[in-house]
């Protein structure tokens, strides 16, 4: 009988039920979309922030003080210490190896350069006056790092410095090619394809072919960039580098993250090293690269953390607002649907139904509606979240089961709360006046 009454109520007034259900589904749809996007946005934005480049800088511990002005190191070539390139695959073996998305070792040397100019008179290349001093940077480009587990990891300057724009092509590893900065190219009228001769005061010359011209927007626009192995051979430091840029996905730092790991107890240390804070990633890199000093590039890391925290909070607020609006609207429509059924309630009571039975019946109806509406809303919300994710980040958020349960529970709570007040009043209805239409 109970089921029959419920089924009858749905069958008799499909329009009303449909409207209430639609309100529920839409409200829950918004809630689902907002929840899915908020859950996902941290990871997505963390990836976006990597367009700012490296957030960790590794230098030799025993290094002398760098005399760096505007990105150029004024130290003599033989000063300072170096780190072994052979240790680098270990970076992808640390606990946070999946968070390390790019790294590139760098070795710089001061050189003087000249570009041979074609002399039409003698139909040969002649050596003009030197271009002047410049910096030769040795680095990786699309370098495949052989990992201990046999796989390769492709990384290089293109990944750590994504804002570099290269006209032409990147140099090939070890192929005697180079790319030059825009300012350097303009000053020395170097074009793609022309040869470039380099020399330091102490060593013999080096000839490279220009395959690309890049703009970085910093002092590197005055530099020549070629593969690390060429520079290593050239300065007589095979297998060594001086600086390592690491770009890692991190979680914004909070007060806990800023504590000194030395003062933590075992439990706290466990929690700290199991969160991808930039400081705990730096710590685990230090463990695998002996003799290295790993520093957080504060400028990048701090700004990133701050903005991530803010945006996350903002989105949670928008989600909260969406949930609130959905809850109120759904509550209002379930309240309305109970109010309009006074006559029915009166009749049921007149036929001898207790207040409890009537309440239970109505609540069951509302709950059924909540599950159907909530389920439909979840489906709508997932589609919305996909659209949003695809349009903005080019990737869809993963549908999460937690969101489904949260949405169904929310739908149930909201409909019950919305109908609670009118239901409460329904208890006190006297059947006679209602049936008389008063």
């Amino acid at each position, binding site marked *: 009988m109970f089921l029959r009454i419920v089924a009858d109520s749905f069958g008799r007034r499909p329009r*009303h039920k449909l*409207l*209430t259900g*639609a*309100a529920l589904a*839409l*409200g829950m*749809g*918004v809630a689902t979309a*907002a929840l899915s996007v908020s859950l996902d*946005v941290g990871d997505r*934005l963390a990836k*976006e*922030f990597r367009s*700012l*480049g490296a957030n960790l800088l590794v230098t030799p511990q025993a290094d*002398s*003080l760098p*005399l*760096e*002005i505007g990105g150029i190191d*004024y130290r003599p070539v033989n000063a300072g210490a170096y780190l072994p390139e052979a240790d680098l695959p270990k970076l992808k073996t640390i606990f946070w190896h999946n968070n390390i998305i790019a790294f590139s070792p760098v070795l710089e040397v001061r050189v003087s350069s000249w570009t041979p100019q074609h002399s039409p008179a003698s139909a040969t290349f002649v050596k003009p006056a030197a271009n002047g001093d410049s910096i030769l940077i040795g680095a990786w480009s699309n370098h495949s790092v052989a990992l201990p587990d046999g796989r390769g990891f492709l990384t290089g300057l293109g990944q750590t*410095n994504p*804002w570099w*724009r290269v006209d032409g092509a990147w140099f090939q590893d070890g192929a005697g090619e180079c790319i030059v900065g825009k300012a350097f190219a303009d000053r020395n009228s170097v074009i793609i394809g022309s040869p470039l001769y380099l020399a330091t005061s102490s060593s013999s010359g080096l000839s490279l072919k220009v395959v690309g011209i890049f*703009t*970085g*927007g*910093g*002092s590197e626009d005055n530099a020549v960039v070629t593969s690390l192995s060429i520079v290593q051979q050239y300065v007589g430091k095979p297998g060594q580098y001086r600086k390592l840029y690491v770009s890692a996905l991190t979680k914004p730092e909070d007060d806990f993250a800023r504590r000194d790991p030395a003062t933590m107890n075992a439990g706290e240390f466990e929690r700290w090293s199991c969160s991808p804070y930039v400081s705990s990633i730096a710590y685990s890199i230090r463990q695998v690269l002996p003799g290295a000093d790993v520093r*957080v590039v*504060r*400028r990048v*890391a*701090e*700004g990133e953390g701050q*903005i991530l925290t*803010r*945006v996350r*909070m903002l*989105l949670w*607020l*928008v989600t909260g*607002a*969406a949930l*609130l*609006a*959905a809850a*109120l*609207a759904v509550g*209002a*429509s379930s*309240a*309305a*649907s109970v109010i*309009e059924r006074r006559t029915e309630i009166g009749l049921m009571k007149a036929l001898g139904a207790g207040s409890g039975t009537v309440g239970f019946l109505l609540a069951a109806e509302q709950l059924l509606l909540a599950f159907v509406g909530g389920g439909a809303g979840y489906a709508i919300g997932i589609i*919305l979240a996909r659209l*949003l994710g695809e349009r903005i*980040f080019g990737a869809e958020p993963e549908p999460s089961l937690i969101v489904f349960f949260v949405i169904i529970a929310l739908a149930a709570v909201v409909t019950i709360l919305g109908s609670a007040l*009118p239901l409460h009043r329904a208890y006190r209805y006297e059947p006679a006046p209602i049936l008389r239409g008063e």
Partner: protein
Amino acid sequence: MGDRRPTNRAMFWRIICRLFGANPGRLFVMLLALGAGAAVTAALLNLQVDAKRRLTTEFRAFGANVLITPRDSGSKGFQPDASTLDSSLYERIPRRNGDDLVAKASLLYGIVRVAPWDARSQTSDSRRTTSAVLVGDQFFGHDLAEIFPSEIVAEPQVTAVMGVAPGVAVSGCELGEQLARQLGVQIQQFVELQSNGSSLFCFINRIRRFGGPEDSQILTWLVTAQELLKQKDRASVIALNVPGNPASVQQYVSQLQSSMADVDVRPIRQFTEGEAKIYNRISGLLTATVAFVLVLTGLCVMAAMTNVAMERKNDVGLMKAIGGSVHRVLRLFLAEAVLLGLAGGMIGAAAGILLSIGLGKAVFGVAARPRLIVYPVAVALTIIVAIISAYPLRRLASIRPASVFRGEA
């Protein structure tokens, strides 16, 4: 006919009042739905406008994004002070980009010898002498903090100045963490700086951690550095932090470049480009989410209102039975919807704006500035939603009074 008009109007309003008063429960439900919709609309619109602006000021954390350098920099080889610009250019840089303050710092770089001063033996410790980069900053400490985000490692509670020797030039300075460690010095000690035969003592006010090349530098006043490096009125670079969205930064840069012909004004691509990308993503995300929430909030409110409207059958039936024309009956209900929308919208939007001020404070630490335009927009939207929700009442026009009273419909 003419004399019946005031009576008609009085009757019209009387019916409206009755419609409101007849069922306080229903009135409450409708106001709640409309008000909630209006509150969310107003809060989100206000917050969205404010958040985008606030976000651009957050980019300040990335430090300088525009550099002004001498035109020929880099061509004169490896003397750090080979090419400089006139430090008075600093004054010519506009302090504002739109509503936002531009942070600027005029900096002079040079390489000096640094030695810790031993207060006991009254000599410089020559064994610990090292070369380091000296940075002079026009408004030392103040500008710098805005341009290079840093963390203060050590700072004295009270600044106490101890004399070195009478007649010796003394200045204040700050040390990068790495340099301080290398020299083995603490705050409130002296270091001696030497360059080209002249020397100067400076008192360490603070030790900072930048996480960049600044960690091995000494920071001091621009005039002090100019004097020591013999570069009177010169600067190596002027670093700017220009807030604003990507387009306005670009515009600021090109305006500045056209007003200063003999120097290079160039954005630091690493940050301007990254900022632009992130800004576009976040503002797109925000706009899209807010739009979705608004549209669906409107639909939710509409669904709830329509539900309420459907139960008006009895009222319509009665009105038609005593001779009301469909036109006039509909007008009554539309007037009711407009009034409800107005009331719900005004209360809700006010609550929403107050809410957004609080929310702005929670997210960005600064209360969101209420935008007056948001209020009428939110109220108007609410009224529109209320009117559209009353639309299904048109169906009621076909109601036959008799069947309503028989309880058939």
